[in-house]
């Protein structure tokens, strides 16, 4: 699979990584990575979520140093301790998320940090000329005098690329640059990238969209689980082979046997669009089954879950729960009362209250059932029920006492509390889980899978499980829907489960 170890330093390599390893407490993000990037090339890095692409960039741009290994820049070994050092050496990066100053114009953003001042006052003409020259050189078409906040997504992207180019980098890293662009803009972007390449700058292009990678990249490196699996010239890499390199063929975890019998239709979504991300999503979940939802970041899975739960409005289409349509008037609280529970992804941002205790974090979903005199919370009862859930065979959370601060728990236990919050509430009909095993170890994952199977076996409950871990979904689901670019690109029954097929539909 490898194209051989790089034993001699390539003379036209502008960047060379040798033996780069990055270890975080408990996890190895990069393992012995050898990589070279040449002048005048667009080098694509592809891989699934968690393959190590972001960590690789962070190491190259100096956000943190590698645990082992050396970086060679223009032939010399370097140690970067700060991103600004990388920038001054000629390594620039454009991130997935925008980092522009909305109140400044395009030109001002481009020349940010490189302005010239006369007697303390910024020379705007100089900035403007700099921005214009860059724009010409690269063939971009974007207004320079409009406030960045008023520009469209692709225009903002272009401004950011120009801003990176203002530092005259020899290496430009683009992280998922097409994430928020439409087809036309993508073509414009590619023209610009080709110009940049001709100019002599090396480009690292990170993406999971194989179509685009194949049309812009000269070489493709596939990463998986922190390792570089292969590097091949684009014309020589067969798409099927590429996908094979991306996925893990071995399914180490064992999943509980799927024996559910499906009952009535719990959730029926038809042609759901939200005017922004989702387009005509049609999907059903029956009681007694676990329905998996696979897709890459940005595919619209979480957005769909938010529509079902009432946190996001659908502009189009219909969602029916137990036969009855859900309207915008059905608030999230009302949908919870009807039995639709959502365990959100990103527990730090959307799930846990960091200032609260374990008790308070768990009971927050069923406080209304703990009302005592004058609306005060029945604390003894609360404690009992919280302990009951957390100590249950399904969850077995490790903690000292329920009044501990939630932040004292490990990630895996925090995730279990998130699950416990909803398991502890009665009346569950449809459980939507968004990345439910995020951050928990193999043993705990198994427990969660068993819990899911157990719940599904209670005939009135259906589960919709959104996950980026394909093996996990294949192991526990009865059916899998594949999302791509906000729409359902495929539905597979258990008999048809095939990693390559599913991944193909997701890319």
């Amino acid at each position, binding site marked *: 699979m490898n194209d051989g170890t790089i034993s001699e330093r390539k003379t036209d390599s502008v960047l060379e990584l040798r033996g780069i390893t990055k270890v975080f407490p408990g996890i190895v993000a990069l393992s012995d990575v050898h990589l070279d990037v040449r002048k005048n090339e667009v080098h694509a890095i592809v891989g699934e979520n968690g393959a190590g692409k972001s960590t690789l960039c962070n190491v190259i741009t100096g956000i943190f140093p590698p645990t082992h290994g050396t970086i060679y820049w223009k032939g010399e070994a370097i140690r970067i301790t700060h991103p600004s050092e990388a920038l001054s050496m000629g390594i620039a990066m454009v991130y997935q998320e925008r980092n522009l100053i909305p109140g400044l114009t395009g030109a001002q953003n481009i020349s940010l940090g490189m302005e010239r001042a006369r007697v303390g006052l910024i020379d705007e003409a100089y900035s403007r000329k700099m921005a214009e020259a860059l724009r010409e050189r690269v063939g971009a078409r974007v207004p320079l005098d409009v406030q960045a906040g008023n520009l469209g997504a692709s225009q903002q992207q272009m401004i950011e690329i120009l801003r990176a180019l203002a530092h005259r980098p020899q290496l430009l890293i683009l992280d998922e640059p097409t994430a928020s662009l439409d087809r036309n803009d993508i073509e414009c972007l590619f023209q610009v990238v080709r110009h940049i390449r001709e100019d002599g700058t090396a480009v690292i292009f990170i993406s999971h969209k194989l179509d685009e990678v194949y049309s812009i990249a000269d070489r493709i490196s596939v990463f998986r689980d922190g390792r570089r699996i292969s590097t091949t010239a684009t014309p020589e890499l067969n798409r099927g082979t590429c996908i094979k390199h991306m996925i893990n063929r071995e399914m180490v975890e064992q999943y509980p046997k799927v024996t559910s019998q499906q009952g009535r239709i719990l959730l029926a979504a038809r042609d759901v669009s939200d005017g922004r991300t989702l387009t005509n999503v049609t999907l059903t979940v029956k009681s007694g089954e676990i329905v998996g939802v696979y897709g890459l970041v940005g595919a619209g899975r979480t957005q769909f879950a938010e529509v079902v739960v009432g946190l996001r409005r659908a502009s189009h289409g219909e969602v029916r729960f137990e036969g009855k349509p859900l309207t915008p008037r059905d608030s999230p609280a009302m949908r919870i009362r009807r039995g639709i529970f959502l365990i959100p992804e990103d527990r730090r941002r959307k799930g846990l*209250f960091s200032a*609260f205790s374990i008790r308070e974090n768990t009971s927050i979903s069923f406080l209304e059932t703990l009302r005592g005199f004058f609306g005060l919370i029945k604390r003894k009862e609360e404690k009992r029920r919280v302990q009951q859930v957390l100590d249950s065979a399904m969850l077995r959370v490790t*903690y000292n006492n329920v009044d501990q601060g939630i932040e004292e728990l490990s990630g895996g*236990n925090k995730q279990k509390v998130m699950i416990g919050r909803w398991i502890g509430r009665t009346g569950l009909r449809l459980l939507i889980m968004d990345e439910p095993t995020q951050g928990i170890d193999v043993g705990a994952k198994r427990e969660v899978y068993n819990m899911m199977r157990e719940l599904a076996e209670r005939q009135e409950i259906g589960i919709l499980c959104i996950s980026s871990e394909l093996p996990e979904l294949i192991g526990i689901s009865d059916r899998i829907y594949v999302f791509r670019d906000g729409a359902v690109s495929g539905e597979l029954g258990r008999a048809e489960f095939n990693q390559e097929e599913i991944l193909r539909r997701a890319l």
Partner: protein
Amino acid sequence: MSENRSPSIRPREKPSQGFIVALRRYAVAVVLVILFVVFAVLEPSFSQAQNVFNIVRQASIIGLLSLGLTCVVSVGEFDISFAALSTFSGVMSVVLLMNGVNLYLAWLISVLAGVLVGSLNALNIVVLGIPSFIATLGMQSILLGVSRYFTGGTVLYAAEYPRGFEAIGRALVFHTIPTPVISFLVFGILLVLFLEFSRSGRYIYSVGGNPEAARHVGINVRKIKFISFVIMGLLAGVAGIIMASMFGSGNPGMGDGYLSPVIIATFLGAVFLKDGLTNSRGTIVACLVLAVLENGFVMTNVPYYMKEVVQGFVLLIAVGSVAVLKGQSVSGGK
């Protein structure tokens, strides 16, 4: 992702560290006791029952207002109009009385006016989306202006007040306990029960701590914020009518002096028990600290301007120590 192989519970803080944490959490209460003792030693009449009641009476108005502000800050917002609102309610009660309105009715209307203004604040902030500081700043201006208009620009003294007018401000229960103290006690208990032990109170802290997570759990964030501002309005109204009764007049400037101490008390209270989160019990203790300081200074003949200097220092030291020790600052939520 990285946490899954570390021990399931982070190692407990060393026992000595636990002691430091406890010290930090109860520091404000400890300071209260120390201050009390110091002043009692310096000036023996300080610790006499009558003076103690004086202290709590002084704390009462600040207490009512800061309990209200605690609600608002805990939900993640701010309200700078409370002082002007209490002035407005107080002035309104006097104006109504001067026009022959029944005493209890006048009080009721004035308090309801407070509730109404609180609702208006909530509307501006929750529905229109005006940032809370700006919205309440604008309201403050309006209230001050209206109060001045009602009093014709001067202090209103009624020729004769209905009997019972002084009851809530200047009277004594059992010949010893000033009535404002009773009000503070009653509302204090109610607010502690509400914020710390009731569902809505828990929701208030939830919204302040993580509004996104609160939404995901089905909490009606708008409703909860609304409730907070209404409570602030109610308490400001009550404080206003007590003030009017205390001073025996409708003074369009009577609330002004409370702006600083109330804000200080609210954030100083955050240090007590909750390591940087505003909370009701902390606020009460902080009010007592400020009142003890003020009263103590008077009793020991410290120049009056020292009060503000010390208040400022106390706040900075208290909040600063939380920020340094905990690595994060005081807030209404996280």
